[in-house]
């Protein structure tokens, strides 16, 4: 086929190019720029990979990374099975199905900082309902209130972790539920019928029909939850600002402390890029591994 070449058409792409450049390429390149240079009284000098090496060997960064990984895997281990379990228990159709869906969607509509503020108050040991109840229970089991409250997220790292994880589970399990539910809804009734005819147990139905059919949506759920929890900032920041001590200082909180608190732009830029590459790498690995065998 003969096509006339009209290079003026390239102008049509220009608005998109400008937009992408302004909001993605230029900011990213600025960070890259900072990460390979040192600033000294307004003078910039190229120092290569120095900031990266510093960051990677920095114990503070390593600790934040370990905390981050621990947090992300904990919430994945809780939210994915719990979400699947709730999705399995939800009605398939009818009015109650809609009611459940709306209830499930509600937490997702609440902004991060509101969630943080909510649980901040709710879990306070003296005036928060949850904090108060837990401490009342601890008192009942023999904890002496004179030693201070048993559950106090402003003092106890374990209590702070517990609250942050609870917050995240409360906020985001619904997302897993909705995705798993969508996967379940796509299963044709004939599969269940065939399983009945084949005499399959409830577990077999889950293992051989429901789980394989949910695979795609669950992969997406795991990816979304991984990326999102790996970037968690607002909730621990609102709750304790990363404390007590450094116990809930996850990567992005640490990053903000370095970039804005200490104005250490070189380190912060290198850390940003490492951080970004880690999320990219893990997501890519996970996606490739789970989707392997699909194309056989």
């Amino acid at each position, binding site marked *: 086929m003969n096509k006339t070449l009209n290079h003026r058409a390239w102008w049509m792409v220009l608005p998109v190019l400008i937009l992408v450049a302004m909001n993605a390429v230029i900011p990213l390149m600025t960070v890259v720029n900072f990460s390979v240079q040192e600033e000294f009284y307004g003078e910039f000098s190229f120092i290569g990979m120095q900031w990266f090496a510093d960051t990677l060997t920095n114990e503070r960064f390593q600790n934040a990374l370990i905390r981050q990984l621990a947090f992300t895997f904990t919430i994945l281990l809780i939210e994915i099975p719990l979400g699947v379990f709730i999705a399995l228990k939800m009605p398939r159709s009818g009015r109650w199905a809609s009611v459940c869906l709306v209830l499930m969607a509600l937490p997702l509509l609440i902004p991060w900082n509101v969630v943080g503020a909510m649980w901040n108050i709710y879990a306070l040991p003296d005036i928060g309902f949850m904090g108060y109840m837990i401490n009342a229970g601890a008192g009942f089991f023999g904890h002496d209130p004179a030693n201070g409250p048993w559950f106090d997220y402003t003092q106890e790292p374990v209590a702070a972790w517990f609250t942050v994880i609870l917050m995240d589970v409360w906020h985001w399990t619904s997302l897993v539920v909705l995705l798993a539910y969508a996967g379940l809804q796509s299963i044709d009734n004939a599969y269940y*019928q*065939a399983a009945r005819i084949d005499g*399959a147990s409830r577990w077999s139905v889950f293992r*051989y029909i429901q789980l394989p059919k949910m695979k795609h949506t669950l992969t997406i759920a795991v990816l979304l939850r991984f990326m999102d929890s790996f970037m968690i900032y607002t909730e621990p920041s609102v709750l304790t600002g990363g404390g007590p001590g450094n116990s809930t200082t996850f990567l992005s909180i640490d990053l903000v402390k370095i970039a804005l608190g200490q104005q250490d732009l070189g380190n912060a830029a290198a850390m940003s890029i490492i951080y970004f590459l880690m999320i990219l790498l893990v997501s890519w690995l996970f996606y490739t591994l789970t989707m392997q065998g699909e194309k056989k």
Partner: protein
Amino acid sequence: MAKITLSNLAHSYSDIPVTRDDFQLKPTIDHVWNDGEAYALLGPSGCGKTTLLNIISGLLVPSQGRILFDETDITELPTAARNVAQVFQFPVVYDTMTVFENLAFPLRNRGASADYVTRRVKTIAEMIGLSDSLDSRAHGLTADAKQKISLGRGMVREDVAAILFDEPLTVIDPHMKWELRTELKALHREFEHTMIYVTHDQTEALTFADKVVVMLDGEVVQLGTPVELFNRPEHTFVGFFIGSPGMNVLEAKVEGDTALLGGCAIPLHHGYKQPDASRVEIGVRPEFVTLTDGEDGLPVKVERVEDIGRHKIVRTDFNGSEINVIVPEDASISDRHNRLKFDPAAIHVYADGWIVDGEDQARQKGASS
């Protein structure tokens, strides 16, 4: 394997059926289906064939009537307790399992010994021609192989009473349809499972089944062998639905052994009493109509000729109603061909859609019974 008795069956989706129209499956179903035969439930969409199948498979409990496998009443039994197998419209396989595991699944669920499972699965794989792919994942197979797996999962249980098919060839490529159908027929001939096959495709039904159950609007209009359906359709719908093109059905006045079609007399093979019905029709298959250039016969106008290779179909017009004629492939048709002759022995008389016996036939029947 079992004989299936459908005793006075009917089903309505509404709780309290009042009129006959409330029934999706009208109370006309009272049959015994023989052990080891292949039955096809044939009819247009919404005729109730799937409802009937669901009653047999145990998905639905009928509003009235009983259903028996051999002498056991299974009307209220759940699917799992019925020993039926079903092949669905689209292939249902367990994607994450291998072909072997798929076939072994029903046996393992019932706690069969590993030895027996292996032996039995190998036998079945041999039967359905999947011995070579026992170790491959079911997921990557073609639709027809998957359909064979779901058939195999049904046959693997030796105690299976009947294998049900719900339009199993819908998603299969046309060239594979023939092959699969032939294989199915061969399997049936060899192993004599009772098979029930739901379809809306007459070719599938006629080639597959020993007996075809033709359904219309929730009623069984005829149960018979393919030959019976062709030679003696008991309802105009059967005549019309089966055959390509279907039977010519023409409104007529029947007096004794003549039918009057718009003033033109057509001789009949039998004498008929004046049928007591609001609508009297005669039906004759296009195979038994001849187109002539003679002087007598029904005057028609040839509208068009369709050459389909084996023979020609001539569409003619008689006072606004279409009459189809099948003529040999080598016949030449000209303007002078404007008369139709019907083979008197092949003409059936219908009153309100249902076939009417000639007086002599009725006498014979009365004598024999």
